[in-house]
């Protein structure tokens, strides 16, 4: 930190910040602004009508179909986060405090799996979970089941299984990094004072890594609700999520950009609400 304190403040950091700042401004902020503006306009036969209206939002809110899709999407997002965060917590704990040096290698392995291809893994899960897929074939051959299990694929279960597999490494990262700040001595002191078992986790470790857990939860939720490939590939006809509604408004046959923009903004606000709630909750609990 000392090295940074003494830096010359006059040496135009602006020149260094400008390229990235300009890039973000032009290709991130401006496009998102256009998205917001368009969501309050309408598109008629692929021609943009620049008149301010709430009709896109009203359509989204009043339609029972869209409403159901939104509710399902949020439930899947929360469900995925609720499954993946505890798994990542246990994994981080084992890597940090039980397997120690080998834990570092395990962490590397998990990170490698993160880069084993997005579409590749979704496709592979379809192969594994399918009606004539690997899992069913295996179970049939082993005689565990006599009929293929049909709810493995084209179901909410398949979506969550695939999402958890995809997101686990990303969720593990912040939790593990929070846990790196907890020293073995902290836990030893706690045990010395009589804390053990689940109580040790509940009263000591979980509060200490709460920021990491919050970040993991937010990441899991954001990436789950924003996905459209997974529901399309393994979710089945009933598995439509908001992502599919949005994608269809831009790529599908009945494309309606402004309606898609409105959906995207509703999704973005859900993400924002969940993000703010988790950070507030984490801050509130840790302060206390």
């Amino acid at each position: 930190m000392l090295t940074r304190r003494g830096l010359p403040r006059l040496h135009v950091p602006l020149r260094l910040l400008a390229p990235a700042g300009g890039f973000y401004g032009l290709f991130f902020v401006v496009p998102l602004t256009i998205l917001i503006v368009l969501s309050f306009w309408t598109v008629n036969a692929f021609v943009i009508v620049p008149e301010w209206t709430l009709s896109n939002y009203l359509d989204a809110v009043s339609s029972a179909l869209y409403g159901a899709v939104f509710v399902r999407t949020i439930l899947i997002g929360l469900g995925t986060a609720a499954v993946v965060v505890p798994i990542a917590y246990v994994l981080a704990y084992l890597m940090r405090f039980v397997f120690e040096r080998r834990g570092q290698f395990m962490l590397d392995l998990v990170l490698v799996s993160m880069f084993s291809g997005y579409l590749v893994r979704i496709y592979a899960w379809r192969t594994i979970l399918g009606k004539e897929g690997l899992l069913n074939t295996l179970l049939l051959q082993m005689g565990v089941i006599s009929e293929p299990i049909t709810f493995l694929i084209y179901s909410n279960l398949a979506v969550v299984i695939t999402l958890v597999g995809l997101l686990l490494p990303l969720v593990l990262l912040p939790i593990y990094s929070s846990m790196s700040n907890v020293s073995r001595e902290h836990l030893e002191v706690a045990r010395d004072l009589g804390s053990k078992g689940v109580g040790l986790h509940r009263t000591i470790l979980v509060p200490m890594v709460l920021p990491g857990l919050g970040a993991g939860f937010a990441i899991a939720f954001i990436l789950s609700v924003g996905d459209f490939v997974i529901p399309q590939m393994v979710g089945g006809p009933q598995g439509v999520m908001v992502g599919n509604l949005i994608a269809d408004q831009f790529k599908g046959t009945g494309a309606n950009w402004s309606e898609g923009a409105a959906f995207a903004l509703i999704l973005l606000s859900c993400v924002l609400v969940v993000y703010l709630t988790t950070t507030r909750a984490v801050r509130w609990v840790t302060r206390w």
Partner: protein
Amino acid sequence: MGNEVVIRPRSSGSPTDGERHGSSRHVLARVFIAVVMVYLFAPVIVTVVFSFTTSPRLSLPIEGLTLEWYWRAFSDPLFSEALIHTVILAIVTGAVAVALGVSFCFGVARLGPRARGALLVASLAPAAVPALVFGIALALFFNALGRTQGLVNAALGHILVALPFVVLTINARLATFDFSMLEAAQDLGASSSRTFWDITFPIIRPSILGAGLLAMALSIDEFVVTWFNVGNQLTVPVLIWGLLRRGISPSINALATVILTSLIVLVVMSNLLNRRRA
């Protein structure tokens, strides 16, 4: 990881061992890790294994091994087109994202702690917004400019995807960077560009390469933003997506294995480079 991990004998310190030497809990821990690893790597293994099997249908037991799917995939002219585009995008993304990210991180390092924190958080924004959302936003932006979709549009999207990760990597390196070295060089008579090429660049070169490889990996794997911006051009993920929607074809496994291998090589190299500290 701190030194205490090395010095301390495991049996005395490990909290899970508890008061009793709970070897049963240790077994449980191993089982848990094993199940998670299988969960994470099952898709990878399935993809690789089935890219070499003779049966076009996915079934067990495996009947025979073949390289036919690779020949089929590689001999497809669409594949070579997609591959060239993917490589170009990866190189452009790596170079531009690293240039922007390094410059940004050095600029941020010269600010006070508050401004630094705020700008770093802001620079991570694209990672906190679903790719779908800024993918379509970017498409609308180019449409408003009257630009037809294509590789350049996709490249800009890829840079946006990769930049937060480059910033994270470089910034982590700069946390232990001794900035007085730069002043020492300037004090000894070096101009600022000379200082960069003589001192800064050689010292953080491993991290720059690491960040670049990471950016390339993200670019190669990028599908969502690409799909909304690339128009009728092909990249390998877009090609795979097309094949997927047409149904199951074993050449997908071959293509996927190619992607997977290149990603893993890039990420392992990136990881090794980022761990190297001067």
